[in-house]
């Protein structure tokens, strides 16, 4: 029974973290129909920022996520202005490949500047603490990251659904040309969406540095899972992304424990394929 509880708790916790990583990707994809291939590298950049804040200035990840979120908002908005905007609408896969180029660049830039060493923040405010949930042990840094990601996703959802800015984003997502005619500055909306997407992954990276080693390749597998989360949840649906992420976290955890740890990612990708055959636009896609 303990095992079962542990598997469920691990799955939900990891799922919520995937959700936060994927939320930004989902937003960008939904509004602009662009897959940001550099998403994993944005995560890495946020983690490096958080690591340097922690090791040089002594700022704890529980605080520095604000800074990494802001930093990633900027980085992402700049990436949009400098790269993505210039290739949207030219050819089907151009933005995807351009961001792929960006991801190679960022990864190797960090490798070159920061060396490939594995960096870990030690003695953070939360490190080493655990809590007991129904017999399962939950490490506090992951738990806080997971809970916080729910908060961030909720806030993002609120922003999209309930604010004027959010309405502008929705209108742009549905029909950019019509939105333009209605007086919405779509260019600004796109920049904002890219920035928000970056901010989500920046916050995620800020928290994750509390328990995960930082190195240039750290974002690779996260970004693959984030793609699957987004596609499984369906085109730009933020609740969809959250549900898909929790589902994927659980499938990973169950397959990892009850089948074999080595197939846990196979199970994730297989689940995605199975669902997509039944619902070609994802769980919440329309």
């Amino acid at each position: 029974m303990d095992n079962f509880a542990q598997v469920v708790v691990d799955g939900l916790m990891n799922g919520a973290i995937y959700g936060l990583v994927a939320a930004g990707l989902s937003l960008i994809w939904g509004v602009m129909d662009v897959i940001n291939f550099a998403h994993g590298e944005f995560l890495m950049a946020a983690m490096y920022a958080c690591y340097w804040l922690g090791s040089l200035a002594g700022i704890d990840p529980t605080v520095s996520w604000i800074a990494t979120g802001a930093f990633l908002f900027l980085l992402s908005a700049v990436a949009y202005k400098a790269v993505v905007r210039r290739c949207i609408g030219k050819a089907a896969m151009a933005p995807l490949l351009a961001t792929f180029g960006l991801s190679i660049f960022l990864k190797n830039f960090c490798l070159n500047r920061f060396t490939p060493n594995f960096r870990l923040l030690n003695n953070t405010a939360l490190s080493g603490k655990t809590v007991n949930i129904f017999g399962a042990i939950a490490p506090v840094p992951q738990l806080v990251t997971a809970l916080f990601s729910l908060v961030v996703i909720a806030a993002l959802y609120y922003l999209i659904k309930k604010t004027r800015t959010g309405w502008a984003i929705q209108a742009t997502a549905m029909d950019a040309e019509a939105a333009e005619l209605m007086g919405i500055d779509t260019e600004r909306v796109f920049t904002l969406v890219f920035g928000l997407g970056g901010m989500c992954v920046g916050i995620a990276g800020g928290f994750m540095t509390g328990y995960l080693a930082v190195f240039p390749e750290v974002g690779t597998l996260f970004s693959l899972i984030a793609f699957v989360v987004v596609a499984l949840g369906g085109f730009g649906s933020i609740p969809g992304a959250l549900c898909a992420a929790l589902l994927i976290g659980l499938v990973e955890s169950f397959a990892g424990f009850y089948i074999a740890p080595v197939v846990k990612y196979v199970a994730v990708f297989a689940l995605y394929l199975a669902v997509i055959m039944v619902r070609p636009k994802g769980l919440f896609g329309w």
Partner: protein
Amino acid sequence: MVSRSAKGKVLKALGIAALFAVILTCGASFAADKVIKIGTIFPLTGPVAVSGQNCLAAVQTAADIINGKYDWPDFPLAGKEGLLDGYKIEIVAADHQGKPDIAKSEAERLFNQEGVFAVIGCYNSSSSKPASAVAERLKKIFLCGASSSAELTERGFNYFFRTAATDGIESEEFADYIDYLNKNKDAGIKTIGFLYENSEFGKHAAEEGKKAVAEIGLEVVSDVPFTVGATNMNSEIQTLKAAAPDAVFGAALGGDYSLMVRTMKQSNWAPKIFINYCTGYQSPAINKELGSDGSFYMGGMGYSPEIAEVYMKGALPAQEIYRGKTGFPLDSDSSQEAVCLHVWAQAIETAGAVDTEKVAQLLRTETFPSPLSLSGEVAFSPGGQNNRAFTVITQLADGQYKTVFPLDYADSELVYPFPAGDKR
């Protein structure tokens, strides 16, 4: 009188032409006479870049020592400037990014194009295999430091030499130690689990480990390969915890190792004893970052700063040169790459000529003193394995590697059993 500026222009033009010629002939060397080129192929970028860059720094350290003049009586060739009658070693570094296909084509380039005398590489066993096959077919020397797959020296190659202990040798030593603990210390270790990365390296280490523990009658209750670069290790540790083996043999590199250590701590469970194959465990950089979380883990090591203080005094000045390049002391993996170059240099000095056949013959037959090796010497068996290679089992305590086995080398008592996360 030709004006100086005109002459300058001509020279400049010639210079540019020469530069183009060099580029066009694909950089076919700046043919200085008294230079022997040695190629290195390490993963300087990609997932294991940190190890690759350390290995390269270690080879460069050895080259600096041999090329320069140092007053170290215990270090062969340190006191002499260069090799033979004044040859200098030039290191030609190549990057295989962790990809076997690139390692193979870089080996070809280094031999055919750069004209290197020998190649040192490739850290990843999977890359060492095709790259050394190239050397073997060309009848050129391939020196291998830290690739641990025992299979490499079981291929019967004639020009392949490996200085590090294999995972087979390490596995037997681990098993010996557990047997010793059971018989003399009443440790009661009956079951074992394996936690290893699902790659050539991890898979092979686990296979050798299973063979070794079968001989001392341990029961394998859990076999957990994991994905390299995993996003979390919860299922892996959970699976181990559910099977609750007395001992665990681990094989994980860098980032995975730190994730494993932390996840294990959070799980509030630990086996009685956890021994690692020479990997993340032995990297000083990682252990510095892990801090006290890394304590009580154990592993096989062919080098550590602590052991060097006592048994390898000759290596200490070399360690300082290396520290100047990387900021860290030498580690078990990278020191073996330096041994490669050092042993090769001694062979060429003895041979008295830059001649591959003579050098290879000497490498096959002679025994070489090696201050960077724990045994103090290197000698290769047929197939190329260094038969003097051995490792000691160490345990980490407060960032220090304490040697616990073999008893002749032991400097401290084992902390046993391993305290679980909540009992630290």
